[in-house]
């Protein structure tokens, strides 16, 4: 379609994604090297002949990577291949130890799945064409500049051989917001499965294909004719590394392309690089021809029969189902259910607490207090994974009336997070144990004794006098008395 013709018509946006996800396994996909990433790790130390691609070394498939892929396939409601096999993708690039990548071609481990996402109030189903396993290349460090200006480039093979899953969606997205929602949901699902760590550098890498189409060529249900899509010039945007980045990059691209069309310019078929720091996409190369990767079977890896793996490998309850169940079983509202299922660890902790104490108390304490205080400190639940039983004990202290909610919230929880103490230590140190009946009664007596003016005001019907006396009692008991109880006791004594 010519630029002029496009110019006359309303435009619709069509986006498809290729998402590369690092799978969390103990060892690399074809060797025994650790995948543990340490920031201070020296380059090329987490390597062996296999992931270095030394002459004569052979790959051996890490079945844990296949298991992780099967879990992803199940969560995406995909078909799992009966037999999984590997191909070589041949191309030359300095970060590729063998100048070919072991990947999957004609028999991807997962095919034909879908992921449902909510965009505003809309439910959208995004089709997953395929998802396959492959090895990560090494990483390049351009010394003294960017890829274009560097004096020389160093290669670090620590990353080489990390298991990657490439998830290829159908061109089902109609805008950058949907892409962001999909990626956030995908990350959430992958974390629930325990196969993904979003905090890891480079754990998520996204290539997006974006085309502008005449809106009237789209079917009413939003589906798009394949031939029409082929005819539209497609832009591939690379180097996106987060769901927020994806939304920004694609929003930029939509604007750039619409502007071009409005000015009557042709949109070129090309690959563009997302420059996160500048917030723009930059042309890398025009795509006149498809690359020829000369795929052929990797004979060093015999096919693996995985027909029964789908049944054999369980996956945990996924976030959507869990949210729904939390609402029903614990009577939570949508917002609390969403907060309490934001990660699997939060949901597990909530459920543990809710089953032991009152569900409402558990919801308030986990969703509002704990997550709120963590958030305030830029922490997440994973930062306190090892201390969850301490937080449960804190809730227990409240539930059994041993400390007041106010003290629990404002003193104990905060001190626990800031100083790393157990709840018992904080209660002990701050003397927060609820005052006994005798001590409260004595404080009530003393307050009445010491404040005859206030007593008189009370009898004269001044409302503020009682509050003043309650405050006196609270201060005498170090805040450890229950204000309601104090209030009752004072009235009882004054009304005698």
């Amino acid at each position: 379609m010519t630029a002029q013709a496009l110019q006359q018509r309303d435009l619709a946006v069509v986006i498809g994604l290729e998402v590369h996800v690092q799978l969390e396994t103990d060892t690399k996909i074809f060797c025994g090297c650790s995948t543990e990433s340490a920031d201070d790790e020296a380059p090329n130390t987490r390597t062996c002949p296999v992931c270095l691609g030394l002459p004569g070394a052979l790959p051996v498939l890490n079945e844990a990577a296949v298991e992780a892929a099967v879990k992803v396939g199940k969560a995406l409601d995909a078909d799992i291949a009966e037999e999984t096999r590997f191909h070589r993708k041949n191309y030359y690039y300095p970060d590729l130890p063998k100048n070919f990548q072991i990947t999957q071609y004609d028999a991807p481990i997962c095919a034909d799945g879908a992921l449902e996402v909510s965009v505003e109030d809309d439910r959208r189903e995004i089709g997953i064409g395929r998802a396959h396993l492959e090895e990560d290349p090494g990483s390049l460090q351009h010394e003294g500049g960017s890829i274009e200006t560097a004096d020389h480039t160093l290669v670090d093979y620590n990353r080489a051989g990390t298991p990657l899953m490439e998830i290829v969606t159908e061109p089902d997205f109609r805008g950058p917001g949907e892409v962001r929602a999909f990626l956030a949901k995908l990350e959430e699902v992958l974390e629930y499965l325990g196969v993904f760590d979003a905090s890891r550098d480079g754990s998520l890498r996204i290539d997006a294909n974006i085309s502008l189409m005449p809106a009237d060529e789209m079917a009413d249900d939003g589906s798009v004719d394949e031939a029409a899509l082929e005819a539209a010039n497609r832009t591939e945007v690379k180097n996106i590394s987060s769901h927020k980045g994806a939304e920004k990059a694609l929003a930029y691209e939509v604007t750039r392309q619409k502007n071009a069309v409005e000015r009557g310019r042709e949109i070129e078929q090309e690959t563009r690089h997302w420059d996160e720091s500048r917030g723009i996409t930059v042309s890398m190369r025009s795509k006149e021809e498809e690359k020829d990767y000369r795929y052929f079977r990797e004979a060093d890896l015999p096919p693996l029969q995985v027909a029964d793996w789908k049944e054999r490998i369980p996956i945990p309850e996924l976030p959507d189902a869990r949210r729904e169940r939390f609402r029903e079983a614990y009577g939570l509202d949508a917002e609390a259910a969403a907060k309490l299922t934001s990660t699997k660890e939060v949901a597990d902790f909530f459920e543990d607490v809710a089953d032991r104490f009152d569900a409402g108390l558990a919801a308030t304490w986990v969703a509002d207090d704990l997550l709120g205080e963590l958030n305030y400190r830029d922490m997440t639940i994973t930062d306190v994974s090892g201390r969850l039983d301490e937080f449960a004990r804190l809730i227990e202290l409240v539930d059994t009336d041993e400390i007041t909610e106010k003290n629990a919230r404002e003193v104990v929880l905060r001190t626990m997070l800031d100083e790393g103490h157990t709840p018992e230590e904080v209660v002990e140190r701050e003397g927060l144990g609820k005052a006994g009946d005798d001590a409260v009664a004595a404080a009530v007596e003393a307050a009445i004794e010491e404040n005859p003016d206030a007593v008189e005001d009370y009898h004269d019907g001044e409302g503020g006098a009682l509050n003043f006396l309650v405050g006196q009692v609270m201060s005498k008991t170090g805040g450890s008395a229950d204000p309601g109880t104090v209030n009752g006791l004072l009235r009882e004594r004054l009304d005698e």
Partner: protein
Amino acid sequence: MSVDAFITEETIQGADDGPLADRTVAIKDNISTAGVRTTCGSEMLADYVPPYDATVVERLKRAGATLVGKTNMDEFGMGTTTETSAFGPTKNPVDESRVPGGSSGGSAAAVAAGEADVALGSDTGGSVRCPAAFCGVVGIKPTYGLVSRYGLVAYANSLEQIGPLAPTVEGAAEVLDVIAGPDERDATTREAGADADYASAADGDVEGLSIGVPTELIEGADERVIERFEATLDDLRAQGAETHEVSLPSVERAVQAYYVIAMSEASSNLARFDGVRYGPETDADGNWNDSFAQVREEGFGDEVKRRILLGTYALSAGYHDKYYAKAQDARAWLKQDFDEALAEADVLASPTMPVLPFELGESLDDPLQMYLADANTVPVNLANLPAVSVPAGRADGLPVGFQLIGSAFGEREIIRAASAVEN
């Protein structure tokens, strides 16, 4: 007087004790040896020192063997004469004006010249059996998956196996006993045949053995070779074996299919030699693409470049189906032919090479003629089967090899039959 069998002579002492404690072993220079350079006969790897031992080297050392050096070979195994080595040719100890065969020519020559008791070679399309035949020694190409390839620098990884060379069938079988068996570092190795005790099969007892002779593997062979082959069959019949003709109709496509598959795999296997970590220093100026090209231009010899180019072409879009896919079909048909022939016979027999050893320099200018000399050996690799070449006397003073082919993991049968040829 040296036949130039070695690229690197260096002694690596194995364990004090073991089945090979009194044996010296020469190792083909495409089998990785920790701390000892492993060149594959190529300028590209002239300075490459592996940090690890191949599994077979580990097993030889554990068995008490003394490694005496790394033997000459056609560059990356690509040749039938050991003349494409960047380190110069090896001479045939039987007749120094002749080639020792290839690509494991250095290993065969070392054994024939008595410079090592036994040797390891690798056989992608005949590279153990051809030099064994030309130098008058025994060479075994094991079933694909019997011997670990971990540490063998790949030429065509779906076809090749490491195999032993020795003066006698029993000597080769003793080495096979040490190196055979599964390896967790090579996913294509199998449990089958791990504890077969191959040396004990070399008992010369062929009473009642049924030998199939594929007519297609006799046609076109040199008359002098056929004469020695027929005489050997007579001898086996005299010892109680029975022979009959069988047919392998798909074998006429074997050489074409072999070269398409081998070159395709080679184009990928050799891609890693790009100058980043291996290869000569060049004065290439420009981007990494130019630098890769320059290193490969200078580091590889002509035959290697020829095969990489042809293999790249065969895998390319638009040609993949025409060449690579068809070659895979031919490979499947050939396997079926072998299955049928071996259903009617215990083993199959043919001349190992259809020709006598070439004069040095004779075949270099005509690669196609050299490829056709592999007609009897490549079908075995395409079908993943075991085969042995055993000396069958001489013609015009030059050694002739007699090839026996077995069923998958049927090494004991071919070892037994081959030991009868020695009688």
